[in-house]
């Protein structure tokens, strides 16, 4: 060891510690300055998947359609019961398609740092751009999904109403919610790779508990009222129900759901941003 005081030398020369996490405000400013990177990355990713598969963009809509057909056949035809709501096909399609937006943001967000290790190890940029790019990609893919969803709903005789204008608002809130989830899961995956194993399980639990192919309101009719109140606190159920309430006749959303959806979107986004930002210095090391 030499006896030079390197610390003092650096301070005297006005040097800054390399890789130090920027304060949140500056970090967000930097993020905004490089927004084109996230946007371009998302766009190129979609183009890459499109050119790899023969059906390309088609898969984005074929997957949820198949999921809907499978559940529709099992629960609508084979096991049909009282819990089957009216207008079953539009009901199911909205459920499956909207849920897909959540589940794909969740899994893509979780992998966003670990699957881009070479990028993270070789270039400096705010790491938050990667989970953001993952969610932007999902938003782009949502456009054809919503288009197909609308076609199916109209095809099954649902009227087009002014209430449909609320759907983009709901989806915008859901994007905030999904981004928050993606940021949290992205950091957790870096700490603990096992998280990627748990995500499909969590997704399945949420799928079955969010009333995708049955109506929670109908299933819980003879249960005490508080059970339904608890179920209504699940934001994913509320996002889906709110979209249904605008687009599928016979579905209604309670005012509580709006509050849950608005509250959880803002909370998730703020928590996600702060949670992810706090570990900024760690992402290159593991």
């Amino acid at each position: 060891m030499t006896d030079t005081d390197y610390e003092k030398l650096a301070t005297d020369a006005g040097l800054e510690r390399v890789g130090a996490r920027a304060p949140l405000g500056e970090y967000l400013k930097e993020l905004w300055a490089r927004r084109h990177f996230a946007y371009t990355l998302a766009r190129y990713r979609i183009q890459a998947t499109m050119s790899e598969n023969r059906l390309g963009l088609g898969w984005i809509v074929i997957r949820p359609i198949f999921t809907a057909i499978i559940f529709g056949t099992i629960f609508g035809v084979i096991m049909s019961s009282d819990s089957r709501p009216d207008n079953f096909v539009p009901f199911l399609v909205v459920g499956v398609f909207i849920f897909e937006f959540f589940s794909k943001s969740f899994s893509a967000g979780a992998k966003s740092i670990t699957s881009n290790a070479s990028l993270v190890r070789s270039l400096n940029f705010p790491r938050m751009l990667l989970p953001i790019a993952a969610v932007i990609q999902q938003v782009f893919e949502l456009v054809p999904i919503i288009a197909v969803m609308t076609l199916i709903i109209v095809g099954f005789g649902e009227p087009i109403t002014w209430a449909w204008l609320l759907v983009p608002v709901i989806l915008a809130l859901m994007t905030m919610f999904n981004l928050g989830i993606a940021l949290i899961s992205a950091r957790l995956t870096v700490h603990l790779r096992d998280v990627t194993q748990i995500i499909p399980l969590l997704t399945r639990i949420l799928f079955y508990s969010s009333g995708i192919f049955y109506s929670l309101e109908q299933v819980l009719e003879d249960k005490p009222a508080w059970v339904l109140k608890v179920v209504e606190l699940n934001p994913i159920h509320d996002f889906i129900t709110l979209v249904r309430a605008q687009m599928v006749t016979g579905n209604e959303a309670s005012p509580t759901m709006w509050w849950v959806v608005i509250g959880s979107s803002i909370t998730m986004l703020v928590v996600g941003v702060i949670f992810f930002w706090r570990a900024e210095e760690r992402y290159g090391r593991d």
Partner: protein
Amino acid sequence: MTETPTAPPKLGAPIVVANDVHVEYRTHASGKALANGGSLFKRQKGIRVVHALKGVSFEVREGESIGVIGHNGSGKSTLMRTIAGLTTATQGAVYAASRPALLGVNAALIPDLSGEKNVLLGALAMGHSKADAEAQYEDIVEFSGLSEFIDLPMKTYSSGMQARLRFSIAVSRDHQILLVDEALAVGDKAFRDKSEQRIRDLREQAGTVFLVSHSMRSILDTCTRVLWIDHGNLKMDGDPKTVVKAYQASAKK
């Protein structure tokens, strides 16, 4: 006060200072790796701590170009990544006047995408604005000399071609501090000459360059000072000829 009395007059202010930098990696080891674990490794219930850097300190002044040498696994690349801020030191810290940029050979940006898209993404990630990135595109591709392959996915490139493209992207921006990790060893003769020239140009624009290389010739050609890293320690720091000689003498033993 930015000048210490001992510094030679031709050098500028300190631009990079490393203060007692330690880096530890935690990693899961399998049986085979455990068997040949040397002094670098400490075992800890299946998780091994690799102590890649064990207290490296130095200061670099404006206008110097630093060669970094050492055998494979000595910690050179870890040191580069730490200086670039891509890996955070577990103890100690690196200070710099501006954020150093690292260019290495091993990382393709996004292998599935074409060279063209990698160039644009790389430029955007480095902080070019969108218009800037598009304006720089031609220069980057021309410098890389890969225009006929630019539409192919980067995974189809040879490692030399990937290194050329990465190098071209990295030097498209004037960096005050540039870290070059063996990137010059991969290109062919013509490209190597071109990139050595570019590094000299960058240095003349009051830049500072760190060059990691196993080629003692390029170290002696381009560097004004050499750091010898050995098992995570800074073994020698000084004039290129002296350090390279000592290094070569130790390698022969």
